[in-house]
């Protein structure tokens, strides 16, 4: 593969992209119809209406997962044959970085919504700025505060504290970042036992984080009255932490796959981009959490 630094590997035609699109199509159709039929008329789920669309959604998700499996199988094969060296690995690296950037912007939308709410909407509804009349005519009983525990239309909830579970979760994620880095160094140093150990710990920490997060949600829903329905505070709380949680799930799955691939001996000192990508992703998820912890729970 000496000349592969000058030549660029262009894969042969592949059915997976089209197949992936079909998967997304099924997901979109299924989810769109499912949401319509199930949440619009509350009990319809119980009456098994909309389950057709639900099955379509499920099938689409499985289809997409299957597609990605085969797609990545091809990629892994190529990687093992050494086709990814040289400039192609650069493409993957840069691709991953820009993908993470796009994820950052996705979170930025929700963070932006949060700051706009805290700094502008809530004070306005409380009559600040030139909005005295908004307050007087429409929401005379409303008091501006953050976290917003009483909405303008009078729904009440409690605010989630920063200590307790959230603090433990912060610690878990921080530690997981460290263990992941140790594993990475072990990979580079070729210490297989250490690699397996710390990679395993990282995966477990991810799972533990998710477990606690679910605990916290249950607590919020059953005991605090903090729900998606509880006004803008609940909306922001669940959407931000929820999307973060989804990303942790994704990241944990990635790390788990990396763990399995380590066991299969896929990575070498020089060639382990997939591993690095998963690690970047994990660090990204970690940084998002820090922002979340500070802005949503703490301040």
């Amino acid at each position, binding site marked *: 593969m000496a000349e592969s630094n000058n030549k660029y590997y262009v894969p*042969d035609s592949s059915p997976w*992209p*089209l197949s992936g699109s*079909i998967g997304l199509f099924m997901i979109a159709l299924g989810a*769109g119809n499912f949401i319509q039929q199930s949440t619009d008329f509350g009990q319809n789920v119980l009456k098994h209406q909309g389950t057709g669309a639900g099955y379509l959604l499920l099938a689409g998700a499985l289809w997409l997962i299957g597609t990605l499996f085969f797609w990545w199988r091809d990629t892994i094969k190529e990687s093992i044959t050494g086709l990814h060296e040289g400039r192609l690995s650069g493409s993957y690296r840069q*691709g991953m970085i820009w993908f993470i950037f796009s994820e950052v912007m*996705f979170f930025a939308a929700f963070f932006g919504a949060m700051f706009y709410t805290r700094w502008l909407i809530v004070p306005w509804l409380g009559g600040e700025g030139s909005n005295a009349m908004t307050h007087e005519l429409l929401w005379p009983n409303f008091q501006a505060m953050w976290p917003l525990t009483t909405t*303008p239309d009078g729904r009440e909830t409690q605010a989630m504290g920063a200590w307790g579970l959230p603090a433990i979760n912060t610690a878990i994620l921080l530690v997981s970042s460290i263990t992941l880095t140790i594993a990475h160094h072990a990979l580079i140093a070729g210490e297989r036992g250490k690699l397996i150990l710390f990679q395993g710990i990282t995966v477990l920490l991810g799972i533990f984080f998710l477990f606690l997060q679910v605990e916290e949600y249950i607590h919020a829903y059953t005991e605090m009255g903090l729900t998606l329905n509880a006004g*803008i505070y609940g*909306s922001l709380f669940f959407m931000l932490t929820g999307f973060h949680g989804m990303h942790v799930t994704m990241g944990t799955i990635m790390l788990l796959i990396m763990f399995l691939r380590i066991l299969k001996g896929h990575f070498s000192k020089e060639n382990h981009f997939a591993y690095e990508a998963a690690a970047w992703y994990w660090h990204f998820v970690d940084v998002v959490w820090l922002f979340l912890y500070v802005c949503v729970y703490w301040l």
Partner: protein
Amino acid sequence: MTATTAEHHDHHDDHHHAPHGLKRWLFSTNHKDIGTLYLWFSFAMFLIGGLLALVIRAELMYPGMQVVDPEFFNQMTTVHGLVMVFGAIMPAFVGLANWMIPLMIGAPDMALPRMNNWSFWILPFAFTILISSVLMSAFGEGNPSAPNFGWTFYAPLSTTYGPASTDLFILSVHMMGISSIMGAINVVVTVFNLRAPGMTMMKMPLFVWTWLITAFLLVAVMPVLAGAVTMMLTDRHFGTSFFSAAGGGDPVLFQHIFWFFGHPEVYIMILPSFGVVSSIIPVFARKQLFGYASMVYATASIALLSFVVWAHHMFTVGMPLAGTLFFMYMTMLISVPTGVKVFNWMATMWRGSMTFELPMKWAIAFVILFTCGGLSGLMLAITPVDFQYHDTYFVVAHFHYVLVSGAVFSIMAAAYYWLPKWSGVMPNKILGELHFWSSLLSVNLLFFPMHFVGLAGMPRRYADYALQFADYNFWISIGAFWFGVSQLIFLVVAILCAMKKGEKAPANPWDAPEEDLEWTVPSPAPFHTFDTPPVIK
């Protein structure tokens, strides 16, 4: 071995080894084939979006409701805007990027070829979802409503009051977003990673530069749009209150998020045009592009400024005075770098030795008509007057000047310019001339009078209007049908080229300078080009 897979050692003569039949198109990893798919797809969407516009124009030809009912009219407006923006203009530019960027920088293909194909194939499915709700509305039992809240889908019209199809619409927007993000990542990576040796950043053709910056905008704002529609979805079905004051949210929050995406989006639809025109004018003026470096800086400034002007779409929502002033000043400022571009094109033509083949005609028309649209944009930026212009046909006139006689004209210029390279035959000259002149005249009949009805106070998204607007609307509609029919001429031109009917094209039909790498390969461009990168001095 060659630059293809380990299993296939037989690619020595790859010209004859393009995959055949359906598989070639469905499973492609070839930037040229994918580019072709994108271009045909976008043209089909242009015709469909145009057809919807013609329904709008048929209804508005006379005062009174005569062709459709107001509900259906709103659906036409909405889906026309969406199909044109996300289905016609953006994919057309991605198609051009696919075809031309590897050729221009001497790369063997796009950096991530399979992902490239994925970006494309998501689109037909996403638009199937969107358009099928229109078909349902037109022909389905009980006429369930298609999206009917404008292409800007403001809450709460699209949340609390949105029709059932809104959820499918939201998910199709997610799909379009995924497609655009992947397409953009591909462009960025290709440009950063796959330039031929010696192709420094400041040697890249401007088309590549403008696309690089566009791709950056795409990666930055498409996820924000995804966030906006996600909040819509949860507001609709999961009880969140992002856009409802009763729960502590604000309908205007939606507009802020939407336009944080939406304004960069309009530059996404014009920056590649700037690139196309910057490629074409020097060739036909036989003179190097004037002020290359400042063109690059101007493009970058436009892109950066585009992140801090979004609220100029929302001057009437009642923002605090300081905010309004900030957004007004920033918006006005964008005229400066845009002006630099216009002046540079003028200086490139100045004392050149110009000929006016079809691509050049479209390019010159672009410069002039885009400037018209840009100048009316500047008028809109003046806030106190925008209170009058806002949501009237004056705005509609503005954005069709920049989008139709801007973006669409530049795409036509690009098509006439590169069709010889894509197909190997010259586009038919007679039909081409007819297409150009017919479009040039009709586009002005179509959109210029919109300024007048707008100033006189005709609100947009109106299915019916007061009598004093009647005459202009009549002529606008005539212009619309004329412009629509003119585009069918291009359909013929394109089909002729695809069927290889016409004068055979040499490798460099326009006598472009040697630095333009795309003209150094044969016409039509072989299936694989630059397997071994060219060396640039």
